[in-house]
């Protein structure tokens, strides 16, 4: 009964969508704004990955919000899961030597890969979020493989805070030096397609990378805390 009603209602909505989707033909150019970014993006921001330039420069304010969302979620998750922790150390069966060594061997490599992704965010696909996620997955590996090893909460909190602060401060510096514009790309744009280009974009992406990495790792950490 319930599912029939649901399907009926969804069918109505689908009907509505069908009427409007015809006006959004697939595969055609629709956006003047997008075209502008593609045409002007290189000159205006100095990043060769236009998505990155949109994410961090044209729509940088969204990204600040996005970083904040993740921050809120991490904090909120901590608050929600904050119980009076009983510090009874259960005996954890240690992982086998092969697994342990493998994890320890892979961990810096994955970190390095994540770092590469977010440092080259303005040049190649990828960026702070993807790199951060990869960094976090390195920590997951450590949690799973090398039981008992934890990221220090102090360190992760510091990194989170600093990452956010860097973003805000860079933005405010833009406001200060450039007059009325928050998040102004005030640094020299550099030469296209080189690592040191695109002004503030790499700085922001590195900050985001660290922040996202530590936050996602922290999320996993919090969630796994009691399951052991």
């Amino acid at each position, binding site marked *: 009964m319930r599912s029939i009603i649901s399907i009926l209602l969804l069918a109505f909505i689908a009907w509505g969508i069908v009427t409007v989707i015809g006006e959004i033909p697939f595969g055609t150019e629709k956006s003047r704004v997008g075209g502008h970014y593609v045409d002007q993006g290189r000159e205006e921001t100095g990043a060769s990955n236009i998505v990155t330039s949109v994410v961090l420069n044209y729509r940088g304010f969204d990204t600040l919000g996005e970083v904040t969302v993740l921050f809120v979620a991490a904090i909120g998750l901590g608050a929600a899961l904050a119980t009076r922790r009983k510090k009874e150390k259960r005996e954890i069966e240690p992982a086998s030597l092969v697994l342990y060594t493998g994890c320890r061997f892979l961990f810096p490599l994955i970190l390095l890969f994540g770092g590469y992704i977010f440092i080259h965010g303005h040049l190649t*696909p990828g960026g702070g979020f993807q790199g951060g996620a990869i960094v976090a997955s390195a920590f997951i590996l450590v949690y799973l493989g090398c039981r008992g090893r934890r990221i220090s909460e102090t360190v992760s909190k510091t990194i989170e805070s600093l990452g956010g602060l860097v973003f805000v401060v860079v933005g405010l510096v833009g406001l200060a030096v450039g007059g009325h514009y928050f998040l102004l790309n005030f640094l020299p744009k550099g030469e296209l397609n080189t690592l040191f280009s695109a002004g503030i974009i790499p700085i922001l992406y590195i900050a985001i990378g660290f922040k996202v990495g530590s936050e996602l790792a922290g999320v*996993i950490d919090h969630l796994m805390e009691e399951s052991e």
Partner: protein
Amino acid sequence: MILVVSLLVLVMLLAAIAAFFFKDLMSAVIAACMVSLIASILFYFLQAPDVAMAEASIGAALVTAVFIVAIRRTERYEK
């Protein structure tokens, strides 16, 4: 090409429907993970490599990990 895409979409939707029907939450999560993975491939086909990377690393991997942890801490079967 279009047939490959159609097939992928079909599999994706089937996976989603499977996620609807599985009583075992772990299987449902894996099905959802599969949805994300195929979506990530579709993103790549749609010329969005950034998004594809993000979806693969965040949507498929991390979310699934979080789900699994959560299921381990609650219960595995939908009653």
